[in-house]
């Protein structure tokens, strides 16, 4: 500027401008349409920050990876010299180290009510079959030749529609794709009310959707609630050791909630604690999307494949419920299987709404919450299995 210092205008690229528009769209969707605002607004602003040339909040290497934070000791000097920025520090110590997604899962556990899953344990089966989308999309992504096997697994896990396991797995297996995968995962979770109904309608008859289920589930005692997170954690940890960080944090958070003596801790974990971590995650994920990384055919493929993942996930849950009905004396509404794709509580609400449309006497929300919660457990198990196989 007037020969005194360098402005950023000269360094702007068309890619940066396109990313500004994408950031603007995300911020608009968050504010005006209230679509996952706690994530889309920080992600949008993070994209703005990283695409402003010379800003230095997130510095990238020539290969397109965030510049490495070598040691805590040299941190201040490295920031001073412009070798790394504040967001590099948040990325390295918050996301690359897996700390933020795991602590967010602790908060999610503290907000989760597992009673519907405990009252109807078959819910776990629907949660499992709803992971079909993860594996179908893994096959498509890998055979397309656009992704390595590790990247394909991370694209697939979007179909589990659970944020923390997606971030956890991608940070471990394909950190270069963390930005687009996280963005697509959270955006599509907000779009569940649009994505699921056509699939459900295509795979069920009106008669099936109208099946009435008793409005009340059985009572779950306090002892069952307390034993559930402990026993499930122990068994899952023994069967899939790589899922321990995710299931452990999830169940620990839940134990804080149900123990009856740690209400303050549970409220803290599910309140300000998770809020702070969520915006740190959002802004850092946004900063992982410079134009050079985001504007690629891989990103477009991820956007398309995520729809396939959600569709097959919904179908997997539905088919399992329809199969179960062949053997059950008291028929269940097969739509509750579709809630196994997690996306708590949106997919359960979709089932409730569609159930009421088919039969106004139908109240499926509590029935759908069981597979919904089981889906969250299932996605953590899947992340652990994929880590065990591919790391």
């Amino acid at each position, binding site marked *: 500027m007037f020969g005194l210092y360098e402005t950023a205008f000269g360094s702007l690229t068309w890619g940066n401008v396109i990313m500004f528009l994408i950031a603007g769209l995300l911020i608009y969707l968050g504010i005006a349409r209230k679509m996952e605002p706690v994530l889309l607004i920080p992600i949008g602003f993070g994209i703005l920050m990283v695409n402003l040339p010379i800003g230095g909040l997130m510095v990238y290497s020539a290969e397109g990876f965030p510049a490495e934070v070598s040691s805590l000791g040299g941190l201040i000097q490295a920031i001073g010299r412009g070798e790394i920025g504040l967001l590099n520090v948040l990325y390295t110590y918050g996301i690359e180290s897996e700390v933020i997604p795991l602590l967010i899962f602790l908060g999610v556990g503290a907000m989760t009510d597992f009673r519907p899953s405990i009252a109807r344990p078959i819910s776990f089966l629907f949660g499992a079959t709803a992971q079909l989308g993860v594996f179908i999309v893994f096959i498509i992504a890998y055979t397309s030749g656009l992704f390595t096997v590790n990247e394909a697994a991370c694209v697939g896990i979007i179909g589990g529609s659970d944020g923390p396991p997606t971030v956890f797995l991608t940070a471990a297996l394909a950190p270069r794709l963390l930005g687009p995968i996280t963005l697509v995962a959270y955006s599509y979770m907000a779009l569940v009310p649009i994505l699921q109904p056509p699939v459900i309608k295509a795979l069920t008859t009106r008669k099936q959707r109208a099946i009435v289920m008793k409005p009340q589930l059985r009572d779950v005692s306090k002892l069952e609630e307390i034993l559930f997170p402990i026993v*499930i954690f122990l068994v899952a940890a023994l069967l899939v050791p790589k899922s321990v960080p995710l299931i452990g944090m999830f169940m620990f958070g839940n134990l804080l909630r149900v123990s009856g003596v740690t209400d303050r801790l549970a409220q803290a974990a599910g309140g300000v604690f998770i809020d702070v971590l969520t915006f740190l995650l959002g802004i850092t994920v946004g900063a992982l999307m410079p134009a050079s990384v985001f504007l690629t055919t891989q990103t477009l493929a991820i956007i398309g494949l995520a729809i396939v993942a959600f569709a097959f996930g919904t179908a997997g849950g539905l088919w399992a419920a329809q199969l179960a009905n062949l053997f059950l004396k008291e028929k269940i509404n097969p739509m509750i299987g579709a809630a196994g794709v997690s996306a708590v509580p949106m997919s359960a609400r979709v089932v409730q709404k569609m159930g009421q449309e088919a039969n106004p006497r139908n109240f499926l929300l509590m029935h759908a919450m069981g597979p919904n919660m089981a889906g969250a457990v299932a996605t953590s198990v*899947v992340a652990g299995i994929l880590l065990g196989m591919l790391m």
Partner: protein
Amino acid sequence: MDWSLIAKVAGGGFGVTILVLVILSLVAWIVGMIVQKTRKPAKETPAKDK
């Protein structure tokens, strides 16, 4: 294209997922059943004649 890897990850992964979740479902069901059986039924207090 490594088809054996695809079969291992997709087929094996999905199969193991189902197996693990079936086990978790059984565990949750067994724990629930044991707790319900061991819960003492509330004692009925005989109505007192006044």
